[in-house]
């Protein structure tokens, strides 16, 4: 079975380490915050100027001056700090954020990522995504493996305008956990019940498959 959105978030959360400063993009990455493993503490960075993002407010706590990068009302965690946008991107560009999780339309075997524009269709802008992929060393891209029509999103060459060049090393899809190195995709893990053949079929770029591909493990 392909992973649900929550399961994708859950698998990403297994990569969190105690003391990590983490930037979560909009969409599935946001859900990662719900699955922080017991016994570890992470601090969430929101690029509009908040380090230490807390959960959504209750109706009584809502404050128009306190939002996240998705423009949602949020709260602050204990030990949070507030800063301006230049400072926020100094953190990001300067490589101070330990893990960045973000979505994409396409990735390719050279670690290129396209995530912000579909010419003629969707022109909303890159927001902070270009800074995030350029500044972070440790990035996990989350996305569905293929489109609804079965077109692979893991390509030899991205077809859409790039968000960043040669910056992606890890991709978690609804079918597989994949590493990108030496100009190839490498299959690390597969979703429970998903066959290697299915993953191979839906991966357009060159995919290296080791003899043994473990299933992802989820604690329930």
């Amino acid at each position, binding site marked *: 079975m392909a992973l649900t959105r929550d399961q994708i978030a859950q698998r990403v959360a297994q990569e969190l380490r105690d003391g990590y400063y983490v930037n979560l993009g909009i969409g599935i990455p946001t859900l990662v915050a719900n699955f922080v493993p017991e016994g570890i503490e992470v601090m969430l960075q929101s690029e509009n*100027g908040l380090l230490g993002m807390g959960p959504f*407010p209750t109706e009584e706590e809502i404050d128009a001056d306190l939002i996240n990068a998705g*423009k*949602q*009302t949020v709260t602050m965690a204990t030990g949070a700090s507030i800063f301006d946008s230049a400072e926020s991107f100094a953190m*990001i560009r300067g490589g101070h954020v330990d893990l960045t999780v973000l979505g994409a339309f396409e990735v390719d075997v050279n670690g290129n990522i396209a995530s912000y524009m579909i010419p003629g269709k969707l022109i909303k802008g890159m*927001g902070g995504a270009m800074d995030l992929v350029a500044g972070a060393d440790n990035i996990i891209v989350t996305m569905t493996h293929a489109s609804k029509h079965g077109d692979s999103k893991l390509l030899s060459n991205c077809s859409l305008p790039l968000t960043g060049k040669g910056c992606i090393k890890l991709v978690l899809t609804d079918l597989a956990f994949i590493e990108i190195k030496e100009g190839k995709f490498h299959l690390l893990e597969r979703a429970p019940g998903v066959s290697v053949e299915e993953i191979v079929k839906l991966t357009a770029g060159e995919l290296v498959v080791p003899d043994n591909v473990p299933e992802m493990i989820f604690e329930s």
Partner: protein
Amino acid sequence: MSGFDKVVTSYQEAMAGLEDNMTIIAGGFGLCGIPENLIAEIKRKKTIGLTVVSNNCGVDDFGLGVLLPNRQIKKIVASYVGENAEFERQMMAGELEVELTPQGTLAEKMRAGGAGIPAFYTATGVGTPVAEGKDQRQFKGRDYILEEAITGDFAIVKAWKADRYGNLVFRQTARNFNPMAATAGKITVVEVEEIVEPGELNPDEIHTPGIYVNRLIQGTFEKRIEQRTVRPSKTTATVGE
């Protein structure tokens, strides 16, 4: 009256001197921390041909979006413009020039503009459409592109509190682009929720010194919320989307 007193008493006075075809730098992220009454005054003045530099362009009926129906904006420099139907229509029809700029680069362009730095190198955007036509150079084996600073004829800023000398304090994430915008205007106009006497703010806790501020006005604010997300009271906290 002290020569450092920046307070004006009408929005008309606050935006006096704004003319057609000028460049305006605006603070705010989404609808958070936007100078909403200064924007309304620009709409009232019917100034046209404006170049606006702002992270976003508001929504259809609030924020910078209110300047779109009368075609007051000629060009916008922004990182994300996806919340606005009229904006999309004008952009697709070629009526509005849009320069998409990465968010961190946009913040740094304002900061550099206000700090007298004409340009800077950044890795953001290398190998993407943003790099087209820009000087590219290697430092320690990595590619960077040259991005130019931005300054404006006007900067419009929203802060929380100020003293009469224009020393500013921002509140929570309504700070965002406002401190950089404040430094990058030939004329910087700030609207705040409360003005106090000089000496009442703790100098250690001032975010933007008054030297950057030319005019200061106290206003009342709608503070519209774009995405009202809540959790139920008294249950386990979760983050959704």
